């Protein structure tokens, strides 16, 4: 029986680890949210609070997905925050000065500009990492410097979007009546979901489907898990890594656009260190930096956990940025330790199982001889 089972279990091993880490993070998110509902009297029971978390953190969720796919290949992309600020700044300037007027066309062109900037960074970084074999950390560090520097070259002062059509887009919100609540004066206030939140959820779903079912997605896991054996299986490793960075760059550009929809102003100091938040979200969601393990659904919940901590502290009497940092740090260390303990115990179990199989095999061998 062990003989029949072993090839199956072997191919599914990294995925099952991922899923377990993902379920842990989902469970903790649920527990935290429930605790907030029970112990805090600040509106966590309203669906609007959940949607607010989504609205405020749409860009973070998107760049977390961007980081997850790169981290699955065993790389990293710390230029994400920089690309967000560059995209937001470039789009704000373009919207204010393009001269097309407030037609939908100019908004569409702005979206193309955002995606183009992201694509540019993705292609450049992907080429340097995959075809020139330079360490991803250094490449994307240079990318971060480049993006931040270009942002300040574009404009050192904050640029507010004055484009009317775009401001309408900012105000456009999906209203869900049955999830709303009745205000003290009797009026029904529907739950509001911003466009950015919908885009973010769409990105998560698309990425999850792609990583799970598309050939490219499977290749990404194979390359991250073991580059050598992926090569021997006939996977074009360099091309896979290249496209992972391109997708990551595109998502960063999209995140910049979503960021601008949420806060219609370009600013050089925006999204500082958000790449580290995104890395933290990916890790909490069960992605390993060593590659081959990860899941965007887990990443989504990782980002939501960070957002919930932020919200809880903002609504509690401890509202100070340094408390927030400390709580984030404590939460992160808790998750990291949990993961390491879980994975270690699993590996030990696997080892003992393997030893048992070996013993059985030995006995059988002895019988035959």
């Amino acid at each position, binding site marked *: 029986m062990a003989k029949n089972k072993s090839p199956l279990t072997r191919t599914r091993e990294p995925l099952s680890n991922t899923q377990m880490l993902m379920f842990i993070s989902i469970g903790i998110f649920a527990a935290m949210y429930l605790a907030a509902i029970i112990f805090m009297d600040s509106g966590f029971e309203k669906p609007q609070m959940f949607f607010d978390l989504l609205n405020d953190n749409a860009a973070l969720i998107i760049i977390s997905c961007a980081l997850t796919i790169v981290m699955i290949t065993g790389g*990293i992309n710390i230029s994400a925050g920089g690309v967000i600020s560059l995209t937001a700044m470039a789009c704000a300037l373009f919207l204010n000065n393009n001269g097309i007027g407030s037609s939908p066309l100019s908004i569409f062109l702005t979206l193309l500009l955002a995606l183009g900037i992201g694509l540019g960074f993705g292609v450049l970084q992907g080429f*340097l990492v995959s*075809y*020139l*074999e*330079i*360490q991803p*950390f*250094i*490449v994307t*560090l*240079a*990318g*971060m*410097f*480049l993006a*931040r*520097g*270009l942002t*300040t*070259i574009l404009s*050192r002062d904050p640029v507010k979007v004055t484009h009317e059509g775009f401001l309408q887009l900012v105000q456009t919100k999906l209203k869900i009546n049955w999830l709303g609540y009745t205000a003290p004066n009797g009026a029904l206030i529907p739950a509001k979901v911003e466009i950015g939140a919908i885009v973010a959820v769409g990105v998560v779903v698309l990425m999850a489907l792609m990583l799970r079912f598309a050939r490219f997605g499977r290749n990404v896991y194979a390359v991250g898990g073991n580059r050598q054996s992926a090569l021997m299986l006939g996977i074009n490793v360099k091309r896979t890594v290249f496209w992972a960075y391109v997708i990551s760059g595109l998502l960063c550009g999209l995140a910049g656009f979503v960021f601008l929809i949420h806060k219609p102003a370009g600013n*050089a100091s925006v999204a500082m*260190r958000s790449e*580290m938040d995104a*890395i*933290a979200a990916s*890790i909490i969601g069960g992605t*390993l*930096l*060593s590659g081959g393990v990860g899941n965007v659904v887990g990443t989504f919940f990782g980002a939501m956990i960070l957002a919930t901590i932020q919200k809880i502290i903002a609504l509690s009497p401890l509202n100070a*940025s*340094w*408390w*927030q*940092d*400390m709580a*984030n*740090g*404590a939460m*992160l*260390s808790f998750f*990291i*330790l949990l*993961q*390491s*303990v879980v994975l*270690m115990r699993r590996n030990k179990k696997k080892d003992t199982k393997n030893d048992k199989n070996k013993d059985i095999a030995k006995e059988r061998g002895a019988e035959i001889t």
Partner: protein
Amino acid sequence: MNKKKNAASGLRQLLIPLIALGILIVFNLIRDVSFFSVEMRVNNSGNVVLAGNLISIIDTASELAIIAMGMTLVTAACGGQDISVGAVGAISGAVLVKVLQAMGGITALSVVAAFAAATAVTILFKLFNGTLVAVFRIQPMIATLILFSCGRSIAYWINGSATPQLTSPIIDSIGKTIPGIPVPTPVFAVLLVALLLVLIFKFTSLRLYTQSVGINQGAARLNGVNPTVVKLISFVILGVCVSVAALIGVSRLGQLNHKTLLVDIEMDAILAVAIGGNSLAGGKFKLIGSVMGAYIIQMLTTTLYAMNVNPVNIKAYKAIVIIIIVVAGSPVIKNALTSLFKKRRPAKAQTEGVS
């Protein structure tokens, strides 16, 4: 024979930093020769000191060079980088100032005591990182992400929001110059740390152990090297380096600001390690490469300043230069070049044979 081979491979590793340094020097020579002028000047406190761009480069890069040395060891042993050095440096500075304030006046003795206390605390924090990395087998970047995100908040918690001022001739002589000696003191600190590390490598097997753990942890363990201990030692050494850098950083400005002390130095330090030709995946390392990397980064910044580039925009130009340097040093380009040379050599031999 073997030694010769080693020296050659060592030189090959230093090729990138040497080329980068050469390019920067040639560029500056063409642009403006006065960039290299060094003169004696009387500073504000009436001492005769050396001044000029070169002096300012080796002076300002001191913290970076010191941390880059420690980072090299951690990178070599763990195959990953510590991104919390800036934040832990802020904690170290906060402890230093706190102890100095608690002891009353600033005397040589109290500075030594405060530095010792700060170093002890820094080593504790680094041991926390090191334990996560070595015992719990967490990737270094993730393990240090914790302190990266909350280290500066801990520094704030230790010292409050104020930016305490330290005014004393002793602090000045640590951060700037000692009266009578024209060379800035931080330069001596770099030399001292480098000397200490070289002596450690000379009289112990730490270098060999670190490299063997970095190259193959399992094989090192089977050969009787304890990877956990070696990794922890590398973090302790990095802790001492960070503490020295924090002392210099605090005394250079004569004040502590937990938000700006050693800010962004982790990225520059990792960059210095990479420019120095060290693999970021661990294994063999060369300290001199990292130190050169640190000075190259500072020289680049100073060159850009001298060209009147706006300080906020410097990052973009820095990024372009970094990309050029790493592309020049990338394995693919290197291999292409070496194969080009190899092709040429047999061709030469053939033509010689024919003639």
